[in-house]
């Protein structure tokens, strides 16, 4: 079964919905929505490589992974901001600053890639591992953060939307955790996979299903949030 097209479709919808959501709503949602929107780019580049020319360039592939890392960092920052708001009821900054800083970090990362030697396969794998490590651990942190936010904004119209984000990060954890597991134990190597076929197949299934459900739940959650915030 080719998961790539289905996953990409869901992430395309999720990314567009979250970007659109970031424009039309309060400043505190900007980081969260931009972060989720960036997953689209992080997913688009590696998954669309077989279909789109130019994406196989190592620098472009490396940028795909880096954007993926930036996306989880930005959205975690967004949830932290929301948590601080829910505790202190204070919110600073503006939307434009969030967009500009995110673009600035992305641009700096791109310059970093360009001024360094062309990433070989090992380098790309390490960058990919770093991305997945960030996703796995920050997903766990975000689940805890969102749980606390839910307690603070209990009974508010948006609280059920935040509960949905817990589900999103559970799926992301399964997706990225399985991928990290495969990478760490090198299960994608046919020789190793032949020794642990069940683990590899299960991890691969978890990765693909997790990815699919994450994309689906991100789009659904933002649509749900948009409905709650009408």
């Amino acid at each position: 079964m080719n998961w790539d097209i289905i996953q990409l479709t869901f992430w395309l919808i999720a990314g567009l919905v979250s970007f659109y959501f970031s424009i039309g709503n309060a400043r505190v949602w900007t980081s969260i929505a931009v972060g989720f929107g960036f997953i689209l780019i992080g997913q688009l580049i590696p998954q669309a490589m077989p279909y789109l020319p130019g994406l196989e360039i190592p620098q472009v592939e490396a940028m795909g992974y880096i954007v993926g890392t930036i996306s989880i960092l930005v959205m975690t920052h967004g949830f932290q901001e929301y948590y601080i708001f829910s505790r202190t009821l204070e919110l600073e900054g503006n939307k434009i600053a969030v967009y500009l800083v995110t673009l600035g970090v992305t641009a700096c990362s791109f310059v970093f890639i360009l001024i360094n030697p062309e990433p070989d396969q090992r380098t790309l794998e390490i960058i990919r591992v770093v991305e997945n490590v960030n996703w796995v651990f920050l997903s766990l942190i975000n689940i805890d953060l969102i749980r606390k936010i839910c307690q603070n904004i209990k009974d508010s119209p948006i609280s059920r939307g935040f509960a949905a984000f817990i589900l999103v990060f559970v799926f992301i954890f399964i997706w990225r955790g399985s991928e990290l597991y495969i990478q760490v134990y090198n299960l994608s190597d046919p020789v190793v996979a032949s020794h642990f076929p069940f683990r590899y197949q299960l991890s691969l299934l978890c990765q693909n299903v997790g990815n699919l459900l994450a994309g689906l739940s991100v789009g659904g959650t933002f649509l749900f949030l948009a409905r709650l915030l009408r």
Partner: protein
Amino acid sequence: MLLLPKGNPVKESIDPSRINIPEAFAKLARSSFTGYLRFDTTRGTGILIFNRGRLISALLESGSGSQIAYDALAAIFECSLSGNVVLNIYRLSPELALGIHALLHGDVLYQAQEVKLLDIKALLGKLKQDKVTGCLRIYTQEHVALIFYREGTPLGFFHDGSTEIEKTAENSMSVAKLPGAKIDVLAAVEADEQDLADLLTSGDVGAIWAKAKQEILQERQVRDREASRAVEMREADRRSKVEELFKSVATKHIGKIGTSLVEKEFEKTFVGESLVTEKGLNGFYQRLCKASRLVAGPSAVKAMLDEMQRGFQGLGK
């Protein structure tokens, strides 16, 4: 209430709170005024009698008793400075001024006897027999007349508009014919004009005035402070009611975080103020709206603000 005929009015219905009374006394002294000043106060009636520019008598008669001399002056000053006092000044002849002085400081033999139930002839006979020196005061609600006696023999009459003791009984007796007329019999203690001390020179009226002014000022300050505290308390109570209302409305529309948001924005908007104004609330609504949009959509926020505005107007009624 002190019942005296009005005499010849010099000035009537003056507000003494606008007058420097010691200065006015000095003026009366310089012009050798003879007559009396009547202060109708909330505490009672004050009578100051001048004879040839000398303040020979001060009396304040209230429901709880009488004060004389400097005590009466101090009380009259305080009442005058407090406001709600009417001052009337009447000119009299020196003889009449002395007669009134003797009368005010004398004893009441009989009081409020109904004229129509009284055997006047027998009463006059008794006065003659007892050789009473004093006067008969005949009065109704509006009019007063005095008939002076010395050792039981009538000296003359004093009624509204008189400046001296008159010999004709016509006006005075006409009061007795009015419905509801009553008679008091008063025994006077006669004093020689020279024996009477001048209260203006024998004491420091200026100091009494200054003290009264100071006391009134302090009273006024205390009253103002109390009034301002009462207003503050009322406003604080209102503020607290408004805040409680807003908290409950916010909780209803955006959950428990609404309570915290209202508390915070209320504190920010009305920092150091106890007065909750419509203008101040506009800023509060704007800030609350902005903060609430982080946890609720525009429709829920609008419904919340509408209910708050309605509730605030309801509290104002």
